[in-house]
C-alpha cells in the first residue's frame, strides 16, 4: 500500500519496564489478573506539579512518550504529528459524563471536556515543542495506529514532508473495562497467573503508548517500514492472500522472513487467523509474540512495532518475546501481523537497515 519509509526512533510505555531502558532485555514483569496496566514514567522529571495537575493520566503519558521519541531523534521539528487512539482519554470522558449528571448540567469544569477530545494530545505535543505542522488523529479501534502510519507514509512518499512523529495512546479504566466485558472482550476465568498463555474466549486487557519518528530517508534509522497492508473483516484466505501479494511485490519468499511478530493473544475465537500464518512459516523464521507482556488493546500492535525497531537497533531478539526459536542467523526481514477481534487486520513488512 505504501513505498518504503524509515523509522528513526521508537519509544514505548507498556506494562513492562520498556520506557526507561528502551528495550526488553531484562526479564519480563510477571503480570496477573485480567487487566495489565502500564508502568508510569517518572513525570516529575518532565513537568512541574502545576503542569501535572492540569493533565490527565493518558495525556501526560502520551506527552512524555512523544518528548522522549523526539529527543532520541534529535529533531524537535517533525513536519507532521499524526496520532492514533481507539478510545482517547477515557478518564476525561468519564469524568465529564459523571460531572454532567452530578451537577445536573450546571456549571462544569471544562478541562475534562477539552482533554476528552481525541486530538487534544496531538495539540499538546505541538504546543509543548512549538511545532507548526500537519496534524491529524485517527480513532478507528484496531486500525488507529496503522491509519496514522499510512497518512504519514503517503506524505513521506509524495515528499510533501520529510519527517513525521506518529504515535498512539490507549488507557483502560475500571468503568470501560465493565463495558467491554459486556461486549465479551475479556477472558472470563483467570485462575492462574499464566492465564494469558492459555487459549480461551476473550483476551487480557492492556494499555500503553508508542511513538515513532519517521523519515523519508535512511540516515541512521535502524528499521525500514517496507510495506503496510490493512484488511477489514477479511473473507476466507484474504489475510494470506494479502501477505503473499506483499511478499511477491518485494520478491520475497516465506523462507526469507527472519522474524515473525504475532499479535496472538490466546483468544480462542480468533486464533485461527494466527494459526494460518504460522502454517506458512518455515523453520528458519523466529516466531515472536508480545501481548503476553502488554495485554490487548486497540493500538497494541505499536508494542510489536516498537520491539521490532529496538531489536533491529540492538541486532538481537528480546528473549521474553520468543515463542518458537527459528534458525535464521540474521534479523533482516520481519513480518508483523496483528488483528483486533477478527475485524481489523494489519500486516507490516519490516527490514533491518
Amino acid at each position: 500500500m505504501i513505498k518504503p519509509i524509515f523509522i528513526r526512533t521508537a519509544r514505548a510505555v507498556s506494562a513492562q519496564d520498556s520506557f526507561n531502558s528502551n528495550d526488553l532485555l531484562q526479564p519480563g514483569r510477571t503480570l496477573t489478573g485480567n487487566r495489565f496496566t502500564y508502568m508510569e514514567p517518572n513525570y516529575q522529571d518532565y513537568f512541574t506539579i502545576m503542569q501535572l495537575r492540569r493533565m490527565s493520566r493518558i495525556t501526560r503519558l502520551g506527552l512524555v512518550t512523544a518528548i522522549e521519541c523526539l529527543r532520541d531523534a534529535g529533531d524537535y521539528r517533525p513536519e507532521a504529528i499524526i496520532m492514533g487512539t481507539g478510545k482517547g482519554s477515557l478518564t476525561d470522558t468519564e469524568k465529564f459524563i459523571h460531572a454532567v449528571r452530578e451537577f445536573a448540567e450546571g456549571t462544569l469544569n471544562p478541562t475534562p471536556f477539552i482533554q476528552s477530545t481525541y486530538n487534544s494530545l496531538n495539540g499538546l505535543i505541538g504546543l509543548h515543542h512549538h511545532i507548526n505542522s500537519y496534524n491529524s488523529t485517527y480513532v478507528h479501534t484496531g486500525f488507529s495506529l496503522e491509519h496514522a502510519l499510512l497518512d504519514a507514509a503517503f506524505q513521506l512518499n509524495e515528499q510533501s514532508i520529510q519527517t513525521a512523529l506518529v504515535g498512539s495512546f490507549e488507557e483502560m479504566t475500571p468503568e470501560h473495562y465493565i463495558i467491554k466485558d459486556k461486549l465479551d472482550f475479556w477472558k472470563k476465568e483467570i485462575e492462574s497467573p499464566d492465564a494469558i498463555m492459555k487459549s480461551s474466549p476473550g483476551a487480557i486487557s492492556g494499555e500503553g503508548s508508542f511513538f515513532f519518528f519517521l523519515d523519508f530517508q535512511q540516515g541512521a534509522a535502524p528499521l525500514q517500514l517496507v510495506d503496510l497492508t490493512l484488511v477489514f473483516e477479511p473473507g476466507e484466505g484474504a489475510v494470506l492472500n494479502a501477505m503473499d501479494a506483499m511478499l511477491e511485490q518485494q520478491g520475497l519468499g516465506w523462507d526469507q522472513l527472519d522474524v515473525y511478530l504475532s499479535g496472538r493473544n490466546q483468544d480462542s475465537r480468533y486464533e485461527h487467523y494466527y494459526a494460518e500464518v504460522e502454517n506458512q512459516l518455515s523453520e528458519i523464521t523466529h516466531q515472536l509474540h508480545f501481548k503476553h507482556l502488554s495485554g490487548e488493546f486497540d493500538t497494541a500492535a505499536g508494542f510489536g512495532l516498537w520491539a521490532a525497531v529496538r531489536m533491529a537497533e540492538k541486532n538481537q531478539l528480546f528473549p521474553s518475546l520468543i515463542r518458537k526459536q527459528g534458525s535464521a542467523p540474521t534479523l533482516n526481514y520481519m513480518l508483523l501481523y496483528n488483528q483486533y477481534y477478527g475485524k481489523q487486520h494489519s500486516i507490516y513488512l519490516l527490514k533491518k537497515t
Partner: protein
Amino acid sequence: MPSVFVTGMGIVSALGIGTASQREKLAAGVSGLGPAAFLNSIHKTEFPFGEVPFSTEELFSRLSDYSKLQQSRLQALGALALEECFTGLERKPAGIRQGLINATTVGGMTDIEDRYFELIKPELSEPDMSWAAGLDCATGTEHLARQFELTDFVTTISTACSSSANAIQFGARLLQQGAVDRVVCGGVDSLTRFTVNGFNSLKNLDRNACKPFDANRNGLNLGEGAAYLLLESERSLEKTGNKPLALLSGYANFNEAFHPTAPSPEGLGAYEAMKRTLEKAGISPASVSYINAHGTATLNNDESESLAILRLFGERVPPFASTKVYTGHTLAASGAIEAVFSLLSLQHQEIYPALNFETPIEVTGLIPCQTYRQMQVEHILSNSFGFGGNNASLLFSRYD
C-alpha cells in the same frame, strides 16, 4: 498530483434532508436554528440549536434500507446523507476498490449517554449488548461502511471541528496514492448532552442565533447533521463513467500550536491553511471567487479568521460568509456540510446570504456577503478550524 473528482454528495442538516432542501433555504436566507425537540438536556430551549427536525424513528423511516445499521441517531443521519450521495450512481461497480473515511467528535454518545450509568453496573446486562459498542467512534463508521459496501478501506478521523475537512483530505490522498479507486469522505455528529455541556462549560454558546463576523457576536450555536462527498480518481471515472460535479483542487492542514482551544489572535493557522491550499492548487488568491468561512461567531475565531483573510487577500477580499447561522456548528460534520454548500454554489453559480450581520468588527472592517447573488463562481475556499490548533482548508473548483 492526479486530479480528484467529486461525483456525488449527500447531506442532512437543520435545513432538512437532501441538497434540494438545503439550497432552497440557503437561497431564501432561512435559518434552521431553533429550540431543540429531541436533545435530552435541560438546555434544549435555553440555547438555539441546529437540530435535524426529525425524531430518530422518522429518520429511519426515510431510509430505503437500514438492515445493517444499529438503532442509532448517528447512524441514521449518516445513512441518509450516504443514500443521497449515491443517487443515480452505481453503489458497487465491479473492479472498483472503494472506502469510507468518516469523521465524528464523540461517535455514538447520543445513543449511549442516557443509559451510561446502567452500562457501568456489572450486574446489569441483557442478551444483546451490541449497542454498547457505540462509544467507540469506529462502530458507527463500520456499520455505515457495511450498509453501503464501502469496506475496502474504512477509517474514522477525530480532530474536533475540522474532522471532516481532514477526512476529505485523507480521502484525496488515498486516491492520489492509488490505495483505492474511489472513496466516500465526510462526517457525522448528533447533538449530545455531553457536547452541549462541554461547550457551555467553555462559555461560548450564544443564547440567541449566532452572529458570524459581527462586532457584537457572542458565541456559537451547536448543530447536528451529516454530509458525504464521493471522490473518484481518473481510473475510477473511466470505469464508472460518472460525470464530475467539481474538482477538489487543493487542501492543507496546519497546526498553529498556540493554545489548546483558542486560535492565535492574528490567525496564523488559518492563514497558513488557506495559503498552502491555494499553493497546492496552483492558483493565486485573486482567483478565489468565494470564501466559505469557518465563522463560528465566537469572539476569538471570527476576528483571527478575518485577520488571516486580510493578510492573504489584502485589498481584494472575495465575497465571504459563514453558514453556521443556518445549521449551527455541526462539529465533525461541518467541514463536509459546508463542502456540499460550496459544491451547490459551484453547480448553480450562486452564493448565499450571511444572516444576522449588523456591525463590522472594528479592527478588520470586513463585511460578509449579505444578499443572495448569482455570479461567476470558479474556485471556493472552505475553512474548518478546530480545538488543538487544527486548521484545515479545502479548495473546490468548477469542472466543465
